């Protein structure tokens, strides 16, 4: 089943986290909305293999990688296409050309950086767009360098470069929330200095506003860093208890006060009777 939605509702960062954590394979289409930016309506294509990004392109014509190689003067379009025809079916074209001595490992890295890291990171600037993830679409060997990157690594790079966070404002963790680590040990991802500083507080007890005070940084900045750690699957947001409000009889009828009732064991016979009773209502 295809997953569809709008980035304003489920952000690209959340989508990438979902695709990586779900080890998803398939094609993510991102279609910009008319009038949402200067480039007009355009569709971006990103292919995933087991949660890793393996290729990206601006069209489905299978010519993106060949074109990039040609633009750099490394190989003519015709020569690249002819060499590609000799590749084993399913082999990423980049690896195939490298095996034939037409490209070096360093050139493949540069191609991957331009194709995936630069193009996909730019998509984090989109305020809104329609997306569809289809797990039935096969991988495109002609667009693949053979290299790949974890989706969250691309997210980290994209969000670090993001200047306008307004589209993500309601996604950010609350200043009153804390962070807790959800990994064993230290992150394997390369964190920057402020990310490491915030990471040191992932103990589930220090509010982001308090972290901001300690680091002498604006709380918005800390919220952004915390969001990066969350969507990179390194930490989870833990809401802390807000300041109690004054309860009135109107808001909490006294006879319903659960605070006055201690938790006590429930017997198996109670549970069996309850299930029997409820089955009569089904």
């Amino acid at each position, binding site marked *: 089943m295809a997953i569809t939605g709008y980035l304003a509702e489920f952000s690209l960062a959340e989508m990438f986290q979902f695709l990586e954590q779900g080890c998803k394979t398939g094609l993510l289409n991102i279609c910009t909305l008319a009038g949402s930016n200067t480039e007009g309506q355009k569709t971006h294509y990103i292919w995933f293999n087991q949660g890793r990004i393996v290729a990206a392109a601006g069209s489905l014509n299978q010519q993106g990688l060949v074109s990039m190689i040609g633009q750099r003067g490394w190989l003519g379009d015709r020569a690249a296409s002819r060499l590609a025809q000799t590749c084993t079916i399913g082999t990423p074209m980049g690896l195939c050309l490298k095996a034939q001595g037409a490209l070096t490992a360093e050139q493949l890295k540069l191609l991957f950086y331009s194709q995936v890291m630069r193009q996909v990171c730019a998509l984090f600037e989109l305020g809104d767009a329609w997306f569809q993830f289809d797990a039935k679409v096969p991988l495109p060997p002609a667009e693949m360098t053979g290299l790949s990157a974890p989706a969250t690594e691309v997210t980290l790079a994209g969000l670090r470069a993001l200047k306008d966070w307004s589209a993500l404002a309601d996604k950010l963790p609350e200043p009153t929330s804390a962070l807790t680590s959800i990994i064993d040990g230290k992150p394997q991802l390369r964190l920057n200095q402020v990310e490491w500083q915030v990471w040191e507080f992932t103990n589930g007890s220090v509010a982001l506003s308090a972290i901001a005070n300690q680091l002498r940084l604006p709380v918005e900045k800390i919220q952004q860093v915390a969001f990066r750690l969350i969507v990179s699957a390194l930490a989870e947001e833990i809401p802390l208890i807000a300041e109690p409000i004054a309860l009135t009889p109107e808001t909490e009828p006294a006879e319903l006060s659960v605070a006055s*009732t201690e938790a006590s064991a429930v017997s198996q016979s109670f549970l069996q009777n309850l299930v029997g009773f409820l089955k009569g*209502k089904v």
Partner: protein
Amino acid sequence: MEIMRLVVTGPVGAGKSTFIRSVSEIEVVDTDRRATDETLMLKKRTTVAFDFGRLQFGTEMALHLYGTPGQSRFDFMWDILIRKAHAYILLVAAHRPYEFRSARRILGFMKQRSQIPMIIGLTHADCPGAWDAENIAIALGYLDANKCPPIITVNPNESASVAEAVIALVQHSMQGCLV
């Protein structure tokens, strides 16, 4: 009187109040009052304290249901409720992916305070754009199917569906040790 307390939690608009109304034998004690912030866009009224419902099925046996506040700033009330609960159900609207992060936030809050049995109830699962259970589990952070709590679909407007959900929660609780 032997009482089992179940908490019904989830993001705003997931169907918590309706869920309790559908199964309670008493007029649900509705502590709703007019919301004054962005939740007004979603619901004309939202729960600021909690909903309470009851199901008495014997002279000395009753099920109490508590709906958590719909707004995160009242989470002190969640704290009280979850500490006294025997089990809880997290309701998630399957067609609103923008609420998944809120649901995940609630899960984080709950898991830090209590290890009581819980299940996930998917509402609006038949709506256009609804995610399936497997993908929602991933979006909520359950990456290992063996460690994922039971996920059921539930229609909060239908008493029979809610009764089935409560049965699932109680049966899940029976597999563990209720304290």
